[in-house]
C-alpha cells in the first residue's frame, strides 16, 4: 500500500473507518471539521455501512454516538474544544455509564486560538470524567489511534477521548494504512443497569469507575503511544506530549540526547514517569495547550527534586501553541542565523467576503442604532457575522459563546437596556439559541432577535444548516407572535426597507424575530460552479 498524504483529521477519520466504525456524529467547528467531512465523503457511508450526520450541536452528537455504542456498535463524536463544553454533560456521565461498543470522542483543541474564543485544553476534562485519552504525536498515530481506542474502550467498557491540536488536525503527513477491521454486530449491553444513573446505581457505577483508574494507568504504562527512551545526557529529562514529541526530535536533529518520555496516552503512565524522574535532576515538560502534566508533577508546593520546568516556570510561553523554535530555546539550542524580519507588513485581519449578506445586515443595524452605548447594544454570537465587530462595520458589541446573544440580550433588557438586540446565525440559533428564545417568550422580554440566515454553516466550509427554511415556523412554535416574525433579504438594494423593519421591531416592546435570509455567497458560488446554469437560476 503506497503512502497517502492526509491531514491529521483525515488520518483519524480513515483510521476510524478502518477500525470498524459504524456511526459518526459531529457539529462542525475549526479545527475538527475535516474528520466528519472525510467520513461523510467515504465509500463506507455511500454503501450504507457507516451512518454519519452533522447534528444540531455537540451534545446531541455525543449522545447519538453513546446510543450507537449502547447497541454494540463502534461509534464516535467529533468536536472542537469549546464544543466539549457544550457536550460536557454527556461526556462526564458517559464515563460513568460506560461504553458497550467502542466509543471515542475526538476533540480538536485550538491553542493560539487560530479560530476560537479560548485555548482550553481538553485534557483537563479527563480529571472530571476519569476517562482515558489518546493524544497522537503525528499523522500516522492519528491514523492508528481509533483502532487502539476502540479496543481499549471495549475491553475497559469506557469511552476514550482522542485529543488533537490544530497543528496536527490541519497538517498533512505521509501515512501507511493498516488492515481494515470488520464492524461490530448489533449487541445490547449484558449489564444495562449501568446506563441508569439514578443516585443509588450511579454511586455504584462511579465507585467502579474510580476503582478502575489503576487499570487505566496500567493500560497507559503498556501502551505503544507512551515510550521511554534513554539518552546519554541526563542533566535534563524531557517529557513531551502529543505533537511536542515531534518538535523535540526535530530540533534535536532526529535523535534526542536526553532521556525522553513520550506521552500519548492518559492517565499519565506512572511507572514510566517515575523512571525519568529518578534518572534526571531536572525535567523539562513540553505539551501543547495547558501545563497539564507539568502542574501534576510540580504539585503544591513545588517539589524540591527533580526540578520541573515548563510553561509554569517561564521556560516556555504560558499561552499559545508550541513551535519548534520555542522548544529549541527551552532546550538551550542556539538560534540559527535567519534573515532579518521586515518592518513593512501590516496586519491583514479576516473580513466578510465582498457581497456577503451579513454586511447588509450589519449596515442596516448600524443605521437603526447609531453609535453605542446610547444606541443600545448588539449582543452577537459565533459565526462569520462576528467579523461585523471589525471596521468598517463595528456593528456588534459582544461575542462570548454559542447562543449567548439571545440570553445576554434578554438579561440586559430585563436589567434596563433598550434597545437590546441579538444577532445570531441560523446554525448557531438551532445549536443553542432555541432555548434562549423560549425564555424570551416566557418572560415577554423586550428583545429583538436578528437571525442572520445564510442557509449554511459558512465559517466551517458550508455544512448544511440544521433547520433550513424552517426558522420562522420554529420561532412561531416557540410562541413568538407571528406579527413580529419578519423575514427580510439582506441586500444593499433593500437597505431602506430593512432599516424600517429593524426600527419597527426595535420599537415593539416584546420579543420579536427578524430573519435576514440570503444564501452565503461562497456556497451559492460553489453551487453555481457545480451546476452550470440552464436559464433562470439564482440571480442573487
Amino acid at each position, binding site marked *: 500500500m503506497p503512502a497517502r498524504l492526509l491531514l491529521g483529521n483525515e488520518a483519524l477519520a480513515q483510521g476510524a473507518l478502518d477500525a470498524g466504525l459504524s456511526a459518526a456524529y459531529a457539529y462542525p467547528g475549526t*479545527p475538527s471539521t475535516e474528520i466528519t467531512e472525510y467520513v461523510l465523503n467515504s465509500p463506507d457511508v455511500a454503501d450504507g455501512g457507516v451512518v454519519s450526520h452533522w447534528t444540531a450541536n455537540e451534545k446531541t452528537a455525543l449522545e447519538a454516538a453513546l446510543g450507537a455504542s449502547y447497541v454494540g456498535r463502534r461509534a464516535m463524536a467529533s468536536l472542537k474544544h469549546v464544543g466539549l463544553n457544550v457536550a460536557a454533560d454527556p461526556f462526564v456521565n458517559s464515563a460513568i455509564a460506560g461504553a458497550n461498543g467502542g466509543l471515542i470522542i475526538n476533540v480538536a483543541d485550538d491553542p493560539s486560538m487560530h479560530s476560537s474564543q479560548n485555548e482550553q485544553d481538553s485534557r483537563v476534562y479527563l480529571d472530571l470524567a476519569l476517562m482515558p485519552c489518546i493524544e497522537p504525536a503525528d499523522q500516522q498515530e492519528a491514523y492508528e489511534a481509533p483502532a487502539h481506542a476502540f479496543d481499549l474502550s471495549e475491553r475497559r467498557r469506557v469511552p476514550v477521548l482522542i485529543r488533537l491540536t490544530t497543528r496536527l488536525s490541519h497538517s498533512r*503527513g505521509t501515512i501507511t494504512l493498516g488492515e481494515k477491521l470488520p464492524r461490530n454486530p448489533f449487541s445490547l449491553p449484558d449489564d444495562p443497569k449501568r446506563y441508569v444513573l439514578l443516585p443509588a446505581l450511579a454511586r455504584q457505577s462511579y465507585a467502579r469507575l474510580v476503582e478502575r483508574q489503576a487499570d487505566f494507568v496500567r493500560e497507559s504504562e503498556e501502551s505503544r503511544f507512551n515510550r521511554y527512551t534513554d539518552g546519554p545526557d541526563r542533566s535534563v529529562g524531557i517529557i513531551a506530549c502529543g*505533537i511536542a514529541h515531534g518538535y523535540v*526530535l526535530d530540533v534535536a536533529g532526529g535523535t534526542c540526547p536526553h532521556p525522553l518520555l513520550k506521552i500519548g496516552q492518559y492517565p499519565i503512565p506512572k511507572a514510566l514517569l517515575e523512571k525519568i524522574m529518578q534518572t534526571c535532576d531536572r525535567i523539562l515538560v513540553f505539551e501543547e495547550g495547558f501545563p497539564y502534566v507539568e502542574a501534576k508533577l510540580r504539585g503544591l508546593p513545588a517539589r524540591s527534586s527533580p526540578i520541573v520546568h515548563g510553561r509554569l516556570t517561564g521556560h516556555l510561553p504560558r499561552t499559545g501553541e508550541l513551535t519548534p523554535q520555542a522548544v529549541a530555546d527551552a532546550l538551550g539550542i542556539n538560534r540559527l542565523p535567519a*534573515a532579518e524580519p521586515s518592518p*513593512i507588513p501590516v496586519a491583514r485581519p479576516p*473580513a466578510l467576503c465582498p457581497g456577503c449578506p451579513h454586511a447588509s445586515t450589519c449596515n442596516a443595524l448600524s443605521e437603526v442604532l447609531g453609535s453605542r452605548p446610547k444606541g443600545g447594544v448588539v449582543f452577537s454570537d459565533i459565526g462569520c457575522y462576528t467579523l461585523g465587530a471589525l471596521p468598517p462595520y463595528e456593528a456588534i458589541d459582544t461575542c462570548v459563546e454559542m447562543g449567548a446573544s439571545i440570553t445576554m440580550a434578554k438579561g440586559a433588557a430585563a436589567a434596563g437596556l433598550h434597545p437590546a438586540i441579538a444577532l445570531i446565525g441560523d446554525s448557531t440559533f438551532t445549536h443553542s439559541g432555541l432555548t434562549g428564545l423560549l425564555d424570551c417568550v416566557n418572560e415577554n422580554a423586550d428583545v429583538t432577535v436578528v437571525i442572520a440566515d445564510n442557509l449554511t454553516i459558512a465559517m466551517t466550509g458550508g455544512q448544511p444548516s440544521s433547520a433550513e427554511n424552517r426558522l420562522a415556523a420554529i420561532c412561531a412554535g416557540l410562541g413568538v407572535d407571528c406579527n413580529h416574525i419578519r423575514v427580510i433579504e439582506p441586500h444593499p438594494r433593500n437597505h431602506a426597507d430593512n432599516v424600517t423593519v429593524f426600527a419597527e421591531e426595535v420599537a415593539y416592546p416584546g420579543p420579536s424575530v427578524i430573519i435576514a435570509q440570503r444564501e452565503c455567497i461562497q456556497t451559492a458560488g460553489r453551487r453555481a460552479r457545480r451546476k452550470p446554469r440552464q436559464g433562470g437560476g439564482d440571480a442573487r
Partner: protein
Amino acid sequence: MNRNIILAGVGGQGLLALAAVIGEAARALGLNVRQAEVHGMAQRGGVVQSHLRYAERSLHSNLVRVGTADLVLALEPMEALRYLSYLSPTGAVVSNTVPLVNVPDYPEEKDVLGEIEKLEINRLVDAGAVGKEGGALQAGNMVMLGAGAPFLELPHEALIAGIETVFSGKGASIIETNVRAFRLGLAAPRPTSTSQASFPP
C-alpha cells in the same frame, strides 16, 4: 534532499491548492512530507500561510523552524515579507508582484517590492500579467508554482502530475489551464519595473 518552504498568501488566492500540488508531487516521489495549513476564520480574506516540508529522511515537525526555510513562495508581495524570519541566510524569496490591497494601511507598493529586491536571492513575477497573456488569469497560484519551481528540487513532470492529481475532480479543461499557468510561470520574465535580481540557474 530536504526542503523547508513557507507558502504565503491571502484567503481566496488558492494557496492551499498550491500547497497540495507540491505536497502531492513530493509524496508521489516517495518522499516524506509534512504540510501545515490554516483553516477557518483566517481564510476570510485574511493572512493564509502553509509550512511545507519534504525530505528523504523522517520528518518529525509539521512546522518549519525559524532560520531553516529554503524558500518563501508568496502569492502576494506583502505576505512574502511577513515570513522573512523563517528564511535561512541562503534561502530564496519568490513572489507575485501584484498587491492585494484589502486593508486601509497597505504600505506603498514600491516599498514592498523594494524590500523583496533587497534580498540576496529573489524572483519577482507579475502573475496577473503572465496569466492574462497566457489565458490563465484565474490560475495565479500555478503561475507562481512555475516561478518557484527552480527552488523546489522536484522534477517538473512530478509537479505537473501533482496538478493533475489535485485538480482531478475538476475536469480536463481546468487541469489544462493550471498546467499552462505552471509552464508560463516557469518561463516568466522578470517584470521590467524591477531592478537586477539575482536568480540561480
